[in-house]
């Protein structure tokens, strides 16, 4: 695979860019693989990548019903942070954030990771106490965050109204090394690296059935035929319930719509990510100048990738109060994704009741930031048929055992 560097760009520029090869191959499916991964979103692709890189397993296929990264990975607002309260969450999200720092170099593709800083506003006394506690927990976990004053908030975000009539800004939890990245590039970078290792990335290939033999998973039936597998990893976000049904078990997951939107492009006015969780809205500015805005998830099951209109209205209303300057902007595009919500709002990386079949799901409204850490932990689980320290707390058995990782990481607010 051709490396991307300044010299290559110069040479190709002189040749009118005719020498670039395809970034990844599109092979016909083989009849069998050691590992089949269902879902070519960020988590599926990262799992494949680390299966190869960390465990030397490369006879791998990633099957995708649509196009690569066309699920939530290509629909999210790309906020990356690791300032969680519980230790298991801090461990896996911080692992992911650290891997984002070197991802462009590791994958030789610019994923535009921009550690511009993530600010979570405290707009009630209750929220302020919560963030003070999180800042202390983060200090113990080795995650760099701090609680900052309203004056410092205003300094970082001059356009903010810290004296809002309903919800004045009482401070904020600030993670300076949080930020954003280019979502498509993350999927493309992993796909290219996996293809280089000889793995098969097969798009337009929907899994419609799961077979087992002798009490173990043996194959998947797809719209492109039957494909045998030694091991099977289901990494399909909002569609996890459907795949689990094919495999013969149920998950503590419900699928709901989460929406986002972007404004018309304007001059640079915001160079950090701001989240306002009390009022359910968050905002950042893209390199194109558009304000990228998201809010709360719907409360009912839905697979249509269309969400409720009133949620958009509520989000915009909330942000207009905190950022009066954006009041006259027009919104250009709006879209939805189907997110996989668990009871404790934490993800599941686990073995399943079907031996040889593993799940990685439940990232809900907040899994983009976790992609590299999740892939790392999931590859370990699949390769060894046993979870490593990152994945172990996120097993399915935690629900039976009452061992919740109660983060409310996705409590109606996306991130």
């Amino acid at each position: 695979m051709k490396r991307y560097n300044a010299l290559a760009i110069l040479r190709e520029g002189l040749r009118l860019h005719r020498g670039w090869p395809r970034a990844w191959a599109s092979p016909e499916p083989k009849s069998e693989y050691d590992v089949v991964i269902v879902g070519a979103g960020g988590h599926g692709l990262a799992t494949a990548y680390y299966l190869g890189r960390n465990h030397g397993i490369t006879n791998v296929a990633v099957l995708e019903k649509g196009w690569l990264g066309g699920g939530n990975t290509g629909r999210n607002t790309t906020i990356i942070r690791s300032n969680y309260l519980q230790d298991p969450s801090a461990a896996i999200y911080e692992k992911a954030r650290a891997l984002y720092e070197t991802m462009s170099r590791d994958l030789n593709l610019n994923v535009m990771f921009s550690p511009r800083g993530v600010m979570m506003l405290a707009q009630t006394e209750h929220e302020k106490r919560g963030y003070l506690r999180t800042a202390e927990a983060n200090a113990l976990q080795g995650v760099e965050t701090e609680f900052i004053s309203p004056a410092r908030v205003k300094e970082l975000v001059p356009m903010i109204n810290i004296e809002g009539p309903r919800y004045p800004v009482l401070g904020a939890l600030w993670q300076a090394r949080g930020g954003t990245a280019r979502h498509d590039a993350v999927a493309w970078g992993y796909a290219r690296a996996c293809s280089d290792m000889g793995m098969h990335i097969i798009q337009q290939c929907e899994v419609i059935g799961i077979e087992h033999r002798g009490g173990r998973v043996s194959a998947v039936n797809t719209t492109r035929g039957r494909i045998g597998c030694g091991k099977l990893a289901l990494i399909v976000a909002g569609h996890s319930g459907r795949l689990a049904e094919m495999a013969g078990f149920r998950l503590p997951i419900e699928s709901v719509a989460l929406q986002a939107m972007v404004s018309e492009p304007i001059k640079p006015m915001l160079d950090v990510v701001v989240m306002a969780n009390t009022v359910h809205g968050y905002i950042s500015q893209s390199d194109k100048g558009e304000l990228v805005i998201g809010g709360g998830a719907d409360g009912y099951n839905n697979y249509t990738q269309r969400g409720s209109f009133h949620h958009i209205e509520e989000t915009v209303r909330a942000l207009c109060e905190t950022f009066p300057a954006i009041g006259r902007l027009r919104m250009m595009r709006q879209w939805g994704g189907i997110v996989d919500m668990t009871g404790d709002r934490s993800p599941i990386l686990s073995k399943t009741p079907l031996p040889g079949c593993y799940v990685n799901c439940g990232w809900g409204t907040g899994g983009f930031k976790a992609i590299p850490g999740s892939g790392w932990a999931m590859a370990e689980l699949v390769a060894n048929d046993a979870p490593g320290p990152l994945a172990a707390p996120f097993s399915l058995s935690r629900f039976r055992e009452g061992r919740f990782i109660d983060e409310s990481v996705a409590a109606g607010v996306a991130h």
Partner: protein
Amino acid sequence: MLILTCPYCGIQADETELAPGGEAHLKRAGPDASDAEFEAYMFERRNPYGVHFERWRHAAGCGKWFIAARATDTLEVFATYKAQCTAPPADVIRAIRARRPDWEGWK
């Protein structure tokens, strides 16, 4: 916007008047239940792609709980009925069948 008819007051309420309450007809596991049964009752959900039975509350109206039969793949609403029903009534099943002849049926 989702519009559901409240079976108590007959009002066609839009979503902003209603509060969603998750999967309907869950049976509480009794004191003799196994851990697995209790786990299933507490956490495991059907989450179907297609016909779904779901609890709703007419929160900004009469305040009562009711049940909606809906399609999660199209957002079509088949029927609503009172929360006192322990299973979908026959006319609701018929209304679903009329629209979804290949529906695998209730439970």
